[in-house]
C-alpha cells in the first residue's frame, strides 16, 4: 500500500534521514519505534509531503507521491495525525471535525460526523465548545476523530500517547485497534515501544535517521536488544 524507498531528508545541512526504506501493506498496523530525535516524525512528515526527500521515492497505492503537494496526498486517502495533536484551538470541536472532511464533497460530511460522534461520545457532548478548552485526552480523541473524517485508507499517527495518563493511553490504543479492524491501515509512530509493539503486525526501529532492525511486532518485543534499549528491561 505504502512504499518508502531509500529517502534522504535534510534540515539545512543536517542529514536527518539517511536512506530509509520500508513498506506498509493493506490492513496492517505497522509501527516505527525509536528514541527521541531518531527521525520518526520526520519520516511521517516526509510521507505526508510536509518535508521533501532529496533522493528516493514514496509510493502510495501504486502511485508516486514523492513530490505531490500535501493537500493532494490527503485527497488520495492518506491521513496524518501529527505530533502534539495540532488541533485548531480557536475553532469549535465540530468545526475541527469539519476541517478533517475538507477534501470530501460536503454532502457526506453529516454522515461522517455521526460516525465519529458515535465512536467518541465525549466529542458529541462538547461539539460546540472551543477546542482549546478540551483536556489532553479529549484533544487527542479530537485529533484522531478529525483524521477519520476524510475516511482515510492509511492513517499515520504520530505519538498518540504522548502526555496522556496511562488509562487514556490504553483507551487510545484500543481505538486504534478498532479502527484497524474496521479496515483502516495504520502506520504508528511511538516512543512507548511496549504498547506499540503489542498491537503492531510489523515494526521498524529507527536509530539516528536509519532503520536498524525490523521484524514482526512479536519478534521485536521479544528481542533482547530491543528490550534493553527501548522497553526498559
Amino acid at each position, binding site marked *: 500500500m505504502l512504499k518508502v524507498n531509500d529517502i534522504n531528508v535534510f534540515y539545512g545541512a543536517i542529514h536527518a534521514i539517511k536512506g530509509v526504506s520500508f513498506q506498509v501493506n493493506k490492513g496492517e498496523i505497522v509501527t516505527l519505534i525509536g528514541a527521541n530525535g531518531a527521525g520518526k516524525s520526520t519520516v511521517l512528515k516526509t510521507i*505526508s*509531503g*510536509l518535508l521533501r526527500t532529496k533522493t528516493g521515492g514514496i509510493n502510495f497505492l501504486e502511485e508516486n507521491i514523492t513530490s505531490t*503537494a*500535501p*493537500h493532494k496526498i*490527503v*485527497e488520495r486517502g492518506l*491521513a*496524518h495525525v*501529527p505530533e502534539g495533536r*495540532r*488541533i*485548531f*484551538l*480557536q*475553532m469549535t470541536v465540530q*468545526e475541527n471535525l*469539519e*476541517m*478533517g472532511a*475538507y*477534501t470530501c464533497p*460536503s454532502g457526506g460530511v453529516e454522515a461522517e460526523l455521526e460516525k465519529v460522534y458515535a465512536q467518541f461520545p465525549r466529542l458529541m457532548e462538547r461539539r460546540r465548545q472551543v477546542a482549546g478548552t478540551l483536556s489532553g485526552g479529549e484533544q487527542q480523541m479530537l485529533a484522531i476523530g*478529525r*483524521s477519520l473524517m*476524510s475516511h482515510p485508507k492509511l492513517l499515520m499517527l504520530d505519538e498518540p500517547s504522548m502526555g496522556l495518563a496511562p488509562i487514556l493511553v490504553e483507551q487510545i490504543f484500543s481505538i486504534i485497534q478498532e479502527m484497524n479492524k474496521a479496515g483502516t491501515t495504520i502506520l504508528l509512530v511511538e516512543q512507548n515501544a511496549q504498547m506499540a509493539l503489542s498491537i503492531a503486525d510489523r515494526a521498524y526501529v529507527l536509530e539516528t535517521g536509519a532503520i536498524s532492525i525490523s521484524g514482526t511486532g512479536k519478534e521485536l518485543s521479544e528481542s533482547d536488544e530491543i528490550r534493553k534499549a527501548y522497553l526498559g528491561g
Partner: protein
Amino acid sequence: MTFLSFLISGLSLGSVYAIIALGYTMVYGIAKMLNFAHGDVIMVGAYVCFFATTRWDLPPTVGVLLAMVVCTVLGVLIERLAYKPLRSASSLAVIITAIGVSYFLQNAAQLLWTSNPKVFTSVVGNSLIKLFDGRLTISVIAIITITACIVIMAALTWFTGKTKMGKAMRACSEDKGAAQLMGIDVNFTISVTFAIGSALAAIAGVLLCSAYPTLMPTTGAMPGIKAFTAAVFGGIGSIPGAMIGGLLLGIIEIFGKGYISTQLSDAIVFAVLIITLLVKPAGLLGKQTTEKV
C-alpha cells in the same frame, strides 16, 4: 450639535480606516505579515475607478467593480511574486519586501499617472441630508461609508464563520501545517485571502476618495499606516477588532482635533494607541497568545 457632527465625521473617517484595517487584519491573520503595500493597493483601486468613471465615462458601479477586479488581480500577483517565495523566511525579510512593493507601487503610479493630483468624483454624488433645521448636515457619502463598513464586517464574519473556505482560512491562520494535513491547499487559501483583502482595499479606496476627493500616488500611504494602527489597536487578526479599532481611531482623531488641539491630533491618536496597548497588550479584542517554551 457640534458633538454630533464631530461624531459623524469621526465615524465616517473611522469606517474608511476600518475597511482598510479589515484587509490588513485578514492578511495578517493568515500570512502573519504586515502588508505595508496594502495602502498602495487602495491608491491603485482609486485610480482605476477614477479612470473608469471620469475618462471612459463608465457608470460608477462598473468603475467600482473594475477597481475591485484590478486590485484583486494585483493583490494575488503581489502575493505570488513577492511574498510566496518568502513563506519560510524571517518576518523582517517579509516586511522589507512589503515595503519594497509599496515603494514600487507608489513610484510606478507616479510614472504612469504623474504626481499631479486628480479630483475624484464621488461615486454616489455629493448630496447632503439636513437635520435640525439645517444645524446638522450629514453627507450621503458618510452614511454610505458607515453602512458599507458594517455590511462588509458582517459579510466577513459570516464568511469566516460559516463557509468552508472561510473556515479553511481560520485553520490556516492557526496552524498551516495541520491545515495542510486536512487537505487544505494553503497557498490557494492565502491567495484567496489576498484577493479578498485587495478587493476590500479597492472599495476602501473608492470610499476614501469619494469622501476626501484628492487622488495622488501617495494617497494610500497615510491611511494605510493609520489603518494598520487601527488593526493593531483592535487586536490584529480579529475581524470585529479591526472594525472597532478603525471606528475608534477615526473618532479619537476627530475629537482630539475638535476638543484638544488640531496641532497635536496625530500625537493624541498615537498616545491613545500606546496607552491601550499598555493596558491590553494584544489590542482591544486580540487574544493574548501565551508563548510556548
